[in-house]
């Protein structure tokens, strides 16, 4: 093992022993979820540190109702394009993939550029825009170029605040999302009252981030520190932010696992209302029967997104729910906690099961 890494781990060991009690640290970014598993970082942690995943996977936090709406639009003959992982999330009316199998025009795109090209061929095309500030900036660009969008874009900070307000899990510190922070900068995190470190995505980044969080805990500080200096500037990316708020208004957002979080959603401004699929296709959307969407299943995605449960604590995990036959979005998305756990941690037992 690399010497500098050994040093960081040693420092983490010393600090965690000094703090003594159980420490819950949460990462809130799909890429961090993958990186933690990829590098086996949980295995390197002292016993009293529990690393959990929060609502950082855009596909996972998209609500059932929104998925049912977009699937219904597709089934009604409206061409729909979205990012790959979204295709397979099952809703009450099936997934977008299943809609396509039945003949609906559904397209996987890698970027909004591809959606803009598709729109030339299918002028009625609706882009199902999801994700946080990172992808919202790209969607904003595409709206300005004339793309019609069904926006389920979300703002990140309100979800972190909602988590703390719910208070179901005592979160001692956040590993803040590197990509989102590249857009929003450091300042928006300052009114969250918890230790936070913005980190990058390689092993050293994450370990240093954990060390910095422990240092804050040991010194009784609760502030935002930036470890990902090579990408995240204090002010973020002003051009991207400007573009987002030229196109979107901040409204209430519907999150899987949380329900409605005030002022957490991005809705297309009135100025672009002709490109807002929710207005353009209101007649189709109004007819959808949502009574089934609210039905609960044994799927624990909601609790997993809130960091209350580990994937292995879900009764469906690896039994009825696998990446090939996913029941919930956390198993569909390559950024989802269940999918990541399934891929990288085949033989592990539940670590720290007796937490909380």
């Amino acid at each position, binding site marked *: *093992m690399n010497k500098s890494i050994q040093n960081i781990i040693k420092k983490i060991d010393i600090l965690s022993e000094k703090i003594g009690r159980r420490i819950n640290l949460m990462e809130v970014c799909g*890429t961090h979820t993958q990186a933690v598993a990829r*590098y086996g970082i949980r295995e390197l942690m002292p016993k009293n540190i529990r690393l959990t995943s929060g609502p950082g996977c855009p596909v996972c936090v998209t609500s059932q109702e929104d998925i049912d709406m977009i699937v219904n639009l597709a089934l009604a003959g409206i061409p729909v394009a979205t*990012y790959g992982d979204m295709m397979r999330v099952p809703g009450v009316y099936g997934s977008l993939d*299943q809609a396509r199998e039945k003949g609906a025009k559904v397209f996987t795109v*890698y970027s909004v550029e591809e959606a803009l090209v598709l729109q030339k061929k299918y002028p009625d095309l609706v882009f199902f825009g999801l994700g946080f500030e990172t992808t919202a900036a790209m969607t904003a660009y595409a709206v300005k170029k004339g793309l019609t969008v069904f926006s389920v874009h979300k703002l990140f900070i309100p979800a972190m605040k909602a988590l703390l307000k719910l208070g179901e899990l005592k979160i001692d510190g956040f590993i803040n999302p590197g990509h989102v922070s590249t857009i929003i900068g450091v300042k928006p995190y300052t009114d969250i009252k918890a230790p936070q470190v913005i980190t990058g995505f390689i092993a050293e980044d994450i370990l240093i981030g954990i060390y910095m969080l422990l240092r804050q805990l040991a010194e009784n500080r609760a502030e935002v520190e930036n470890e990902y200096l090579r990408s995240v500037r204090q002010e973020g990316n002003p051009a991207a932010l400007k573009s987002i708020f030229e196109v979107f208004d901040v409204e209430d957002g519907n999150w899987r696992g949380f329900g409605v979080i005030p002022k957490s959603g991005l809705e297309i401004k009135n100025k672009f209302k002709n490109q807002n699929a929710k207005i353009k296709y209101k007649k189709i959307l109004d007819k959808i029967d949502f009574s089934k969407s609210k039905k609960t299943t044994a799927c624990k995605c909601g609790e997993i997104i809130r960091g209350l449960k580990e994937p292995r604590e879900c009764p469906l995990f690896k039994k009825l729910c696998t990446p*090939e036959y996913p029941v919930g979005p956390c198993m569909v998305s390559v*950024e989802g906690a269940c999918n990541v756990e399934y*891929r990288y941690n085949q033989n592990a037992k539940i670590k720290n099961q007796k937490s909380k």
Partner: protein
Amino acid sequence: MQKSKIKNQNNRIELDHGGGGYKSWELLRDIRGILRLKGKWKNCEDDAAIFNLEKQKLVFTTDAFIVDPIFFPGGDIGKIAICGTINDLAVMGARPLGISLSMIIEEGFPKADLMKIIESIDAVSRQAGIPVVTGDTKVTEKGKIDKIEITTAGVGLAKKIISNNGINPGDLIITSGDLGEHAAALLSKRFNYKTRVKSDSKPLNEELEKVGKYLNACKDPTRGGLAANLVEMAEKSKVKVVLDEKILPYKKEIIAISELLGIDIFSLASEGRFIAAVSPKKVKKVLQILRKYNNPPTGGAKIIGRAERGRGVFLKTSLGSLRPIEMPKGKLIPRIC
């Protein structure tokens, strides 16, 4: 309710059934459950089937190609269609004799593009010394297929078959060159990235003719990349393979593209490389020969890991932990967070 959901998903063919992962395997099993007659052919569940002749073995393979975009840096659908079949024969230790070429073309497809595709097939055919000997052409109404679909088949003769299940504990795992450049070239074209990455597609018959006799197992890491193909080889050979993160066969640009998009680098396909297991005594000789064909700067042949007793494929990470490398599930999907 959950059970019925899963049943529903089985009723139709999904894109994942063609993805090369677990679902493809399930589908193949179902098809093979019906097509049970095998005659004297062996190895029918694999990339190429084998028919024993008196002194040699006849090897027979076929492959269908769809690719988006059809022209990409370093090649086109025609080039990968002919290379794919030549390489499927070559990695079995066979000397390819001839190739068949069938095309389904969408009405309205530009004739100049078709001729460009045929010319690149011709270029590979001449380079490899393997003729295209028969074929068929169909045209469908506009919109029935997407531009063009190509199916190639090929026969070859082998004195000794190189299997994909012959890895022994103690063998070294090598690659004939750096991996993932084909997939990375396609991805950078889709994302409009300005890179110098070109598809690695090329025929492998000549280099495999030279080193085939030294190899214990061999496979070309096309669909599913190193992950899918090495996992399959290790599983069939009943060994454990440990790769070392420090000596992975990927160029800087490929790593950058995979990290930028958040796509698992081990799933990136190559169309002109192979992975093989070689006993430590012979490895120096094999690498020496292969470097004539895959010189640095194109990324030379090298050792990437070692086989041991046990099961599974693992990567020794820079942190010293062993992380499992899994069979990729479904299609490659870039990150959105």
